[in-house]
């Protein structure tokens, strides 16, 4: 075998989460009252846009979560194959040139020269102190002056291709629609073109075009240029910001996964059973809330670091070491952030347990467990969902801050926080190295903005009060 699949802890959890989500989608599809709010999410323009952008991020994150170790080319004729100690992902494999085209050090976006002067020996033997040419960036050009024209041509080509792809999507859409709706093909053709749907189709196609345009352009341009420049060790910044997507998503989703069972169970238990159980749970979360979160996180991460350093035999690769730290960060973030949701759920349960249908159910002889799972939990799920979606963007930002402070993810792991952290020293430089920070900022900003818009729409769709207002 030419590669060895590697399952990191966070990969397992991510795919577990994916299975749960897929199962939930299957479940919801058959229930009109559950699928109605989701449909209304997609019917809003903002909802449509944010879902499409988020799914791009999710695809990158998922591709980046399938890890393997490539086989080393055997130098001696041994039977055994050795695998590289470097763990790669499918995403790495897809953007291999991006990963491999390392320059010496900093270079600006679309530049053809390094950012620092070097003493170089010219062809004629003379020694010159100047910015050297890049190994890969714009290396295909014979004349540096052709750069603008070349970029212009590439963008044009990419735009045409993305238009073509958009048209392909449209055809697929028409075919799919005429298949399942049993309507005539030309009719569907017209229907979609004239936006005769309950969903905002124009918005869909506009967003699809924008996304295709960006993606295709990035693919084309990054073949020959460093679109976002390179960092201190010459690594492509575009590659870094794409790799950071997974870290951000992992923090944003797994943390809630860790926090949810605790928040739900304790919140419901406190609200439903009242009495001493309520007192104990309230006491726990009030106490936990009064400990500064950063302190707790810093302490936990340092303890883990000591453990990892003392037990190197447990971790085969650097990636595994970094991964365990990421997982631990998720857990500790989850431990410190469940209190808010728990409090909301407790309050809602207090209200629900007095609801007349719960009374009626008790009068019919239902037990506590059946009431909890049939009446209380389903009526809390919209709150859980809203909390999860709202927390997501906060957690992505928290990762950046924590990594910046130095208690976040492992320094060897590419993340937006680490990118910002390493770029901060260069901000004082003259001329300033701005691209690392900008790239991290843009990719994080788009994700968080999309997540926030999505959270907004989800809250509108699931909040019972908003439903009445509409």
């Amino acid at each position: 075998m030419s590669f060895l699949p590697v399952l990191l802890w966070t990969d397992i959890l991510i795919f577990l989460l994916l299975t749960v989500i897929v199962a939930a989608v299957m479940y919801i599809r058959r229930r009109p009252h559950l699928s109605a709010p989701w449909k209304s999410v997609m019917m809003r323009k903002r909802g449509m846009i944010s879902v499409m952008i988020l799914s791009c991020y999710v695809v990158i994150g998922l591709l980046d979560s399938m890890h393997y170790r490539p086989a080393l080319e055997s130098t001696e004729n041994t039977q055994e194959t050795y695998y590289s100690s470097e763990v790669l992902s499918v995403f790495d494999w897809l953007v291999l040139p991006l990963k491999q085209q390392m320059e010496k050090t900093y270079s600006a976006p679309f530049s053809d020269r390094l950012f620092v002067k070097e003493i170089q020996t010219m062809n004629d033997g003379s020694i010159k102190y100047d910015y050297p040419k890049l190994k890969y960036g714009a290396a295909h050009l014979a004349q540096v002056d052709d750069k603008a024209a070349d970029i212009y041509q590439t963008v044009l080509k990419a735009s045409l291709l993305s238009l073509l792809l958009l048209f392909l999507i449209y055809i697929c859409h028409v075919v799919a629609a005429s298949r399942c709706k049993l309507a005539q093909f030309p009719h569907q053709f017209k229907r979609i073109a004239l936006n005769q749907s309950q969903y905002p189709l124009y918005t869909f196609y506009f967003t699809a075009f924008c996304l295709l345009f960006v993606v295709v352009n990035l693919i084309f341009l990054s073949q020959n240029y460093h679109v976002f420049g390179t960092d201190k060790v010459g690594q492509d910044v575009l590659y870094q910001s794409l790799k950071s997507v997974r870290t951000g998503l992992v923090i944003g989703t797994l943390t809630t996964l860790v926090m949810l069972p605790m928040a739900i169970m304790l919140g419901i238990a406190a609200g439903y059973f009242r009495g001493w159980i309520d007192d104990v749970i309230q006491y726990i979360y009030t106490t936990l809330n009064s400990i500064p979160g950063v302190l707790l996180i810093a302490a936990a991460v340092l303890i883990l670091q000591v453990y990892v350093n003392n037990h190197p035999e447990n971790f085969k690769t650097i990636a595994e070491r970094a991964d365990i730290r990421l997982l631990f960060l998720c857990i500790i973030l989850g431990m410190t952030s469940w209190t808010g949701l728990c409090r909301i759920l407790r309050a809602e349960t207090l209200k629900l347990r007095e609801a007349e249908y719960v009374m009626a159910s008790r009068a019919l002889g239902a037990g506590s467990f059946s009431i909890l799972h049939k009446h209380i939990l389903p009526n809390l799920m919209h709150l859980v969902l809203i909390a999860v979606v709202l927390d997501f963007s906060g957690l992505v930002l928290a990762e950046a801050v924590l990594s910046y402070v130095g208690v976040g993810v492992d320094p060897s792991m590419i993340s937006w926080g680490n990118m910002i952290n390493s770029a901060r020293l260069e901000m004082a430089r003259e001329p300033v190295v701005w691209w690392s920070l900008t790239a991290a900022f843009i990719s994080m900003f788009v994700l968080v903005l999309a997540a926030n818009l999505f959270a907004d729409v989800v809250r509108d769709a699931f909040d019972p009060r908003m439903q009445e207002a509409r």
Partner: protein
Amino acid sequence: MSSLLEVTGLRTWFGHDSDPYKAVDGVDFCIEKGQTFALLGESGCGKSMTALSLLRLNPYPASHIVSGEVRLAGEEILSLSEAEMEKIRGRRVAMIFQEPQSSLNPVLTVGQQIAEVFHWHFTLDKKAIYTRTLELLHSVGIPDPIERINAYPHQLSGGMKQRVMIAMALAGEPELLIADEPTTALDVTIQAQILDLLKDIQQKTGMAILLITHDLGVVAQMADHVAVMYAGQIVESASREQFFNNTLHPYTRKLFEAIPSEQKREEKLTVIKGSVPPLNRQFTACRFAERCELAWQYCQEAEPRWINNNDHGVRCHLYDPDVDAEHIKSQKQVSSSRLSEVIPANNAILQVSQLKVHFPIKKGLFQRTVGAVKAVDDITLDLRSAETLALVGESGCGKTTVGKGILQLVPVTSGNVVFQGQKLNRLSIRALRSVRASMQIIFQDPFASMNPRMTINNVIKEGMLTSKIKDSAAQEAKVDELLTRVGLRADIKHRYPHEFSGGQRQRICIARALAAEPEVIICDEPTSALDVSVQAQILNLLRDIQHEFGLSFLFITHNISVVDYLAHRVAVMYLGRIVEQGTREEVLNSPKHPYTQALLAAVPKIAAETHLSKQKLQGELPSPANPPKGCHFHQRCPHVMPVCLEQYPDTTLLSPTHNVKCFLFEENYGSTNTN
């Protein structure tokens, strides 16, 4: 003399122009100076929206006034600017709402809120405002105005808050007061006080009142002129005398017939079939035609025009001289199906003795119990097979807690609930579960009593939790059967509760209760959230199933006319105790306890000819956490004696079935001053 308020062709529509929801669709009326004009209608017929549109307070941008004219003393006000409008709102036209709780700002004192109105509309100094506020509070009958002026809304009872609302409305010295269901959220005794107050103020100040209500009794008591709204239009308009002596429109007649009363005990109540048509439809026919028994072909074809005859207007083809409707008029007759009386057996199926439910009041760091809210305090009653026992009382008197205490839904402090020979409050949770199915409860709010995330099928199946039917197919069949029994189609069972109207939901709740095959059903105000016509349907259904299954009902209500129609025996509760108990005839026709007398007197009656010197109760229900010493009722009792302040009266048997707790009837204290 020109009218104070003249409304012509008012239309307020919701939503887009392509598919408008016509909440108010062409309303005309006028109100004279000093007149009380009642706008009567069931929920969702557009009466509140009409009132809001008059002041341009209709929800914006959800709705807009499409056309119409509103003239206040000759001045057209719909075209005024918002700034000019502000000078009219609260100053010339004031408004009070249904919920006094949510109409007052909880963080401002009563005095501040009234003073605010003075600030807006008058230029007065602080001292003048203070004295005016005191005067106002005094004039709306608030005791100790000097103290109450600094009180916050939560420190006042519902009735007091409504009085404060009225004071605020009066502060601007308006020419017209719009009262949107001002007493619906209040108890009958408080309602009577508030209505009296409104009349009183009207006599003093000469302002006109636009009274919006659904209660024919209130209309009879208050109105000079009545207009009935249906589906966004006024269908009948007349002076009170004309209205009550000679109702014309079939809808109005049905409304009268749907009201339960003693005279209708023998028969089923008249119901109006169907429901109000969706208002986003394009109307080309009479809006009531589908539900009208007198409708004929022509009603489906043309919209009736407004026919005015001696100031008695009606919107119906029957009265249109240009339409030949004689053949219909001759046919009409009262058809009522007779219903035989259920004769209750003599054996008690449920015995409650000395039931007490106290809720502890906890205070301080260690949650010490410092007192108790005695919600139910020593109640003894028994329910016989196939009997309806009505439990009557004001809100807060503990009648709902009695129901929950019997079902063991709240912990019982002491006393016994004996059902099928078992003491329910001594049973273990497991043993209790098997008994529970035999006693069911139907709640007041049909919107809250079903889990919104369960299909009707699952809701009803939950009722079969403890039943013997375990087979899935048999359960499905049973669900179908039950749905058909309560008058719904069986194919609705895969839908969700939010798709149904209040009456339909209440039917589903009844089906769920029946699924458990109970012997006793506790009905906790099952019709108080419903309109009169829907109430009639539910009451009919309840009587039918009582016949069919031989059920016993403990009917908890505050609606005396429902009691009169349905009950065999009546128990009157006051502050956690039963003060009078007896057969329906005994309690309702010759009430003995002063509280029962006052309660019955406070009910607004349609035949309001008898304006006798009614005993109006003063004051309000005391707190059950701190009941007054002696007889709980002595502070409000017109016959109070010295002994009443000292001790609580014992039960006096007036007849084998009739007992009362009052010193007036105890031998030692003599019945000297009974009346």
